[in-house]
């Protein structure tokens, strides 16, 4: 019982001291607002830098992930060149383009392949009764494309197998195109213009969002042959291919084999095509952003270090200024630890104020980037909270030396200090 009572007394004393300490610290900072602000400005700049860069990286990542998601996570893209060329670009320069024959060969012989869809891209103006979009992405493909991508139909339908192969004047449009050309009205059955030609809208896609400031929903999908007639078939094409379930790796081998046979490559010849996947892009992107984030982190940390030293300096001044107060507190019964905690609390509060200012500035920075630049910057509540906790830690770290000095002053000397 006695032990419990003693423990309870100690806990109560610690709590009472801590509450009083925090109140004192808050009042001290409020009384010296300008000084606290100036001393913590370095912390604020450091945190603002970190927050902005963090937000930018997070924004880039989510932009990129969103764009990649549209590619389908297990879809392979057969194209003449790899998506990411590292090193010898010349090697790929003279590769022949992907042709309809390649598509036909894959479709004919690929028993491990699910959907096989040629995809070609162009940019064009699209209009409907005076409403126009200056530049929209026009994609030529077949009905199977919907199975290789993450596209979803919101209204109407996608290209049918017959239409996809044919040269019909029909189109599936993205949600943004639908909105801008038709406002509230239903676009189904309407005839939109792509250049000189007219297309009947048969379907509208679900929104996919933005990536890198560009809408993924500003798109018009038309049958591949129609596309060829309109824009020419010589331009580079890709083939989106999915594997039948459970045959992902064997499917890739099969593609290589079919393509090599189709192109008449000998045993010693190199491939004249590349197989691309979303995951490779993601890997490269992650590597790049990691490097960027690393540099940013280093810059932010150096700023915080400088800011922390500034706070330490101010705290050392505060300890000297308040030597007599420390003496009085010690005379009245404050233990060394109490004084230590008091000064640690103060420096942590000062840096947290800096952290809060920095977070606010960082958030504004991200908003500005969002408005002005084509990339988005995203700041989460967790990031803001993390910044506050981090700045408190900086305060504790750089407050340790001043607080230690304060707590180890001799009470007699401290009381006599002039």
């Amino acid at each position, binding site marked *: 019982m006695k032990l419990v009572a003693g423990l309870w007394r100690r806990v109560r*004393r610690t709590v*009472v001291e801590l509450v009083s300490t925090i109140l004192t610290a808050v009042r001290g900072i409020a009384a010296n607002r300008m000084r606290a602000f100036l001393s913590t400005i370095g912390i604020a700049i450091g945190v603002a830098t970190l927050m902005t860069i963090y937000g930018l990286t997070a924004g880039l990542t989510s932009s990129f992930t969103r764009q990649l998601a549209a590619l389908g996570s297990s879809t392979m893209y057969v194209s003449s060149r790899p998506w990411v060329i590292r090193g010898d670009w010349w090697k790929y320069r003279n590769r022949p383009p992907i042709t309809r024959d390649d598509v036909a060969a894959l479709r004919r012989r690929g028993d491990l392949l699910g959907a096989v869809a040629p995809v070609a891209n162009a940019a064009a103006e699209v209009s409907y009764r005076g409403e126009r979009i200056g530049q929209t992405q026009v994609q030529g493909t077949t009905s199977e494309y919907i199975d290789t991508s993450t596209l979803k139909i919101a209204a109407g339908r996608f290209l049918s197998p017959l239409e996809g192969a044919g040269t019909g004047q029909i189109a599936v449009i993205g949600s943004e195109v639908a909105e801008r050309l038709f406002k509230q009205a239903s676009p189904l059955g309407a005839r939109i213009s792509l250049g000189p030609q007219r297309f009947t809208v048969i379907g509208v896609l679900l929104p996919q969002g933005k990536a890198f400031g560009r809408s993924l929903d500003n798109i018009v999908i038309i049958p591949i042959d129609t596309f060829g007639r309109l824009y020419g078939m010589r331009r580079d094409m890709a083939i989106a291919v999915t594997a039948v379930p459970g045959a992902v790796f064997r499917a890739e081998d099969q593609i290589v084999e079919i393509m090599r046979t189709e192109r008449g490559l000998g045993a010693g010849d190199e491939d004249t095509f590349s197989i691309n996947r979303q995951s490779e892009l993601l890997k490269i992107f992650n590597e790049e952003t990691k490097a960027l984030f690393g540099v940013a982190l280093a810059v932010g940390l150096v700023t915080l270090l400088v800011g922390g030293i500034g706070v330490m300096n101010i705290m050392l001044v505060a300890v000297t200024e308040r030597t*007599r107060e420390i003496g*009085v*507190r010690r*005379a*009245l019964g*404050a*233990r060394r630890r*109490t004084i230590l905690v008091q000064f640690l609390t103060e420096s942590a509060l000062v840096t947290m104020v800096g952290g809060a200012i920095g977070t606010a500035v960082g958030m504004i920075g991200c908003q500005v980037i969002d408005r002005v630049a084509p990339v988005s910057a995203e700041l989460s509540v967790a990031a803001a909270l993390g910044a506050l906790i981090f700045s408190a830690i900086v305060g504790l770290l750089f407050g340790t030396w001043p607080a230690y000095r304060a707590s180890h002053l001799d009470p007699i000397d401290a009381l006599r200090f002039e």
Partner: protein
Amino acid sequence: MTALLELARVSRLYQMGSETIHALRDVSFTVEAGEYLGIVGSSGSGKSTLLNILGCLDTATSGSYMLRGEDVRDASDDELSDLRNREIGFVFQTFQLLPRTSALENVELPLVYRGVRAGERRRRAREALSRVGLASRMRHKPNELSGGQRQRVAIARALVTQPSILLADEPTGNLDSATGREILELFRQLHEAGNTLILVTHEPGIAAQCPRAIRMSDGQIVDDGPGARVVADAAVGVQA
């Protein structure tokens, strides 16, 4: 009955470079509960060192200091802090109030270090301030109070923990003589109410008013007796 405090052959040495300074030599005396003791001496007589040891701010180099039957010499820094909080009420020459802090909060401070909750703290601090006649000045900050009022706040702060000893170091040194007399009158009343007071001063006139006085010189006690007698003897150069 054991004495409230008992010093036995207390010495305090300081090392100043290669020189050893004897601030206190073999000081022995006892104080009973309820006594009003003046410690008088010129500067450098060792009275400040003695005050620091009595106040548990410093410890003796040799000898023993028993405070309410507890040996202070072996106390750790934390234990000394707790002893100061529990047993000692300090009153300083320069008041030593926290600036920008109301009288009430200044008085509450020692109770914070005892872990007393805010409501109880406030109640006891009000009580202590009323005892020193400052009931109407509780919300004032030190810079809004006169010197005498500040010293009253400091006395309230010393009283609020109901310490064993009220230890006053030149409490009238920064006050004009009229205000000084008021403070001394307050001390007399506190003594009558049963408090134990030790007052350190260099002014013989003040020591003369103490029922008992100790005269210090060169780190030693040279006289111990009724205040008026000790002061009178000092004036004519008699050494006990």
